[in-house]
């Protein structure tokens, strides 16, 4: 085994091994646990850096291991996987810092950080999966690793949220499994190959392929929270803030969206999907989800719930971009995978800070919070403006490319209204929050002030992560044309997918 075949495995192992060790640590060995967490995250950043460079230069990194005849566990780095791996790696590092600040005095830390690392390892494995079989394995592992995180607090609501989460995701996982097995029976082991592989199958299979596509999309749509499969997401926000942040930005929801991208581009092939008439259905589901999620977000007073419905809506931009045939739409969808991640994680970090510092859980309690916590609120504002699509924040780039792609593909007639309505709704549920935070006078006292203002407005480990990610969201928009930016990378993916 040389470096090229070991690298994908090492990238997964750099979070998996610390996680396994952490399970067996004493509850009070705070330093060792922090060291392991940060060392794992640091090593992963370095390894992923090497991987980005190599993939850009057409280097092949692949680990494979036979589990049974015809069932190979394959970890493979291509442009798309590297994009998702980089996002997960950077946000994991930031979220780990945040989680240490957020949780280090609460019970069951070894269990929490152990599963936290497993959750990231599953996400990375899913990103690097080289075939559908491997993807299914990590997709299910992600479900398993996330359940204890959602249930972590052990309150009746937490257990209920976790149960609902599990019911949805295991049900979806079962359909995904059936679809994947069926596909393997008629097409053999389905490796992810740029441009897809199924178009070579004879026409008599096309009927079956349509049913399989439906099974796979329902299975993936549960995690991606496509309406009407989104019911678990608002319930799962009972989880601790770092978990919600990771769940909404990287791990679970993104895994579903990433799977949709994978299946459309690298299993079916986008042109073949379009020939089968399946893209339109996906586009309609995405459009409904985008509008529905935003409408629901409008009426939520609970801040985390409002953000959760916003996720339902925003993640479907990725599916929408996938459903728009043509490289520009593809760029818009794929780049939003990254942009939505860094913006949404900022919002959840900020929401967590309000709750931890001042006991604020509701939008109606946020009057004047910008005066008390300016840095957090600034980060929140940048991310919220980005979600609406205001330049120069990253979200603008995504929407620009989606719109342009729709015009190029000749589907502007229905995509443009969706984009416009959704942006207006985004503004309608985010701007009042910003107005309250900056321009309203605070009440006589905060609901429950846990952390007094000292050198910073809150604990340092809680403050820096949203500031850093807000900076990233701004940078991804401002320097969108710089080499190795998310946009440039999405452009590279689109060129390789369409063979341009």
């Amino acid at each position, binding site marked *: 085994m040389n470096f090229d075949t070991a690298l994908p495995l090492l990238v997964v192992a750099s979070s998996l091994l610390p996680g396994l060790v952490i*399970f*067996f640590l*004493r*509850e*009070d060995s705070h330093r060792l646990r922090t060291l392991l967490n940060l060392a794992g995250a640091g090593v992963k950043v370095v390894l992923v850096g090497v991987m980005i460079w190599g993939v850009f230069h057409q280097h092949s990194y692949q680990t494979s*291991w*036979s*589990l*049974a*005849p*015809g*069932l190979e*566990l394959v970890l493979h780095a291509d442009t798309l996987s590297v994009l998702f791996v980089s996002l997960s790696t950077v946000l994991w590092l930031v979220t780990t810092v945040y989680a240490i600040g957020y949780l280090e005095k609460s*019970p*069951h830390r*070894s*269990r929490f950080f152990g599963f936290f690392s497993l959750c990231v390892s599953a996400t990375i494995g899913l990103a690097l999966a080289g075939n559908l*079989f491997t993807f*299914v*394995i990590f997709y*299910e*592992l992600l*479900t*398993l690793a996330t*359940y*204890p995180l959602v*249930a*972590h*607090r*052990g309150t009746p609501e*937490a*257990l209920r949220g*976790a*149960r609902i989460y*599990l019911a949805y995701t*295991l*049900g979806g996982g*079962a359909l995904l*499994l*059936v679809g994947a*097995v*069926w596909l*393997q*029976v*008629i097409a053999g082991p389905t490796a992810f190959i740029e441009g897809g592989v199924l178009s070579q199958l004879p026409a008599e299979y096309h009927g079956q392929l349509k049913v399989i596509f439906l099974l796979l999309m329902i299975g993936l749509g549960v995690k991606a929270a496509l309406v009407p499969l989104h019911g678990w997401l608002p319930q799962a926000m009972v989880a601790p803030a770092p978990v919600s942040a990771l769940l909404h930005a990287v791990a679970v929801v993104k895994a579903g969206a990433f799977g949709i991208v994978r299946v459309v581009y690298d299993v079916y092939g986008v042109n073949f999907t379009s020939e089968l008439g399946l893209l339109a259905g996906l586009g309609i589901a995405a459009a409904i989800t985008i509008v529905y999620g935003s409408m629901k977000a409008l009426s939520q007073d609970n801040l985390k719930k409002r953000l959760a419905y916003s996720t339902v809506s925003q993640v479907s931009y990725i599916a929408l971009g996938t459903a728009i045939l043509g490289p520009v739409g593809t760029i818009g969808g794929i780049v939003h995978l990254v942009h939505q991640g860094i913006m949404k994680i900022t919002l959840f970090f900020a929401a967590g800070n309000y709750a931890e510092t001042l006991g604020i859980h509701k939008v109606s309690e946020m009057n004047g919070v910008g005066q008390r916590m300016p840095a957090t609120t600034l980060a929140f504002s940048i991310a919220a403006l980005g979600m609406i699509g205001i330049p120069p924040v990253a979200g603008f780039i995504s929407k620009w490319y989606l719109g342009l792609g729709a015009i190029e593909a000749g589907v502007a007639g229905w995509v443009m209204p969706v984009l416009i309505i959704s942006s207006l709704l985004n503004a309608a549920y985010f701007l009042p929050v910003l107005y309250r935070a900056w321009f309203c006078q605070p009440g006589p006292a905060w609901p429950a002030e846990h952390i007094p203002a000292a050198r910073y407005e809150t604990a340092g480990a809680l403050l820096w992560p949203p500031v850093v990610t807000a900076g990233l969201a701004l940078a991804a928009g401002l320097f969108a044309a710089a080499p190795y930016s998310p946009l440039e990378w999405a452009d590279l993916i689109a060129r390789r997918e369409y063979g341009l």
Partner: protein
Amino acid sequence: MAETLIWLVAVPLAGAVAALLLPRQSTPIVSVTAVAASLVAGTLLYAVSEQGRLSYEIGGWSAGLGISLRADGLSALLLMMTALVALATSVYAAAYFNKAADRARFWPLWLLLWTSLNALLLSGDLFNLYVTLELLGLSAVALASLGGKTAAVQAALRYLLVGLLGSMMFLAGVSLIYAGYGTLDLSTLAGVVAAEPVAWTALALMTAGLLLKTALFPLHFWLPPAHASAPAPVSAVLSALVVKAAFYLVLRLWLDVFADLVTPAAANVLGILGAGAIIWGSWRALRTERLKVLAAYSTVAQLGYLFLFFPLLQALPPGPARDSAVGGLVILALTHGFAKAGLFLAIGIIQQRCGHDNIRELDGTAQRLPATTFAIALGGVALIGLPPSGAFLGKWQLIAASFATGQWLWILVTIAGSLLAAAYVFRVLGHAFGHQPYPQRPVTMAREEWPALILTAMAVLGLGLAGAPVWDLMEIGA
């Protein structure tokens, strides 16, 4: 290398006799025996994978007069699983039975059970199979009654009667075969049986007896009380190994010896009973209030999956697809063996620590014993069939074979059973979260928690990630 076959029977038997004669030294005797027997099983697995199938005639007498032992890939795998499960359970039992008198009563029977399992898996003719089956049943009943309470004795008595009835039916079938064909040797028999009434009747009788012993729905009624009231280490081997021994015989008869007689309709009957077992067993497991009963009903359900393979194997032509399915069947059986043994051991720890195994009142216990709870979680993952457990690979093959043969019903049953299993497993695991006091270290009772953890990890990680050799070994037929 063929001598390893006789050692597999001789070592545990000698240990049993020694433990009976020297009760004070029985624990060290068992330690040595268990390690030695496991090493022999490992050697045999290696020898079979290197040299193909092995056989040994005791005393040099050939079949017909003497006793001959034989091992192929399937029996070597099951012998290995028996050894690992029995070894881990022995370590556990030494701590579980904390009175010397209890241990002295337990060990000889325990090694006798191990001996009869090994002998059964190595036997190549129907009469020896009958004898070993009877021996296995009797030692299992004796062990199950060790619980000492009225319920345990009642359940054990019922277990005894059912076991005897099963053996009688098996014996009746064996006599018919001997009357009809004049031989009981399995490989000779495979060449001479023809599709005629005597063979059908014999197969039907033997199968019925074995189905009773392997507790296939609706003949499972005796299993939950027997497995749920026995001491934890006994429940572990009853569920993991003893019912598997009867299943192993069904497999041998239907796939090897009487393969030409089996009609699709007959295979379908087994499949439908298996489907009934999955749904009914899982449902009862979901509705019960006690952990041990849950585990016992889950055994009923898990055995059902194994029977779903019969109609599939009947429909698949010989070739790679059928070989994959056979491997899937075996890995499912092995995974269940490890997972269920570990699960029963973990439940035993909970029962000892708080004196009950009531699911509703688990909160404090589940949090005081993180390692035990983790073992239950790992076992649960294998029971549901989620990756990376071996059961996931098995279910993948099961679903693939169903698609390949167009038998869609089994897919629905498999998925429904898996979701029900998820429901009963996570109903238990929900109690692991909360604000009860919990220890600084995850492992608090090393000698009992490690065996449970290792067995369940074997089911999830060992077979799931390193299970590919199972398919290679299954190519080595009898």
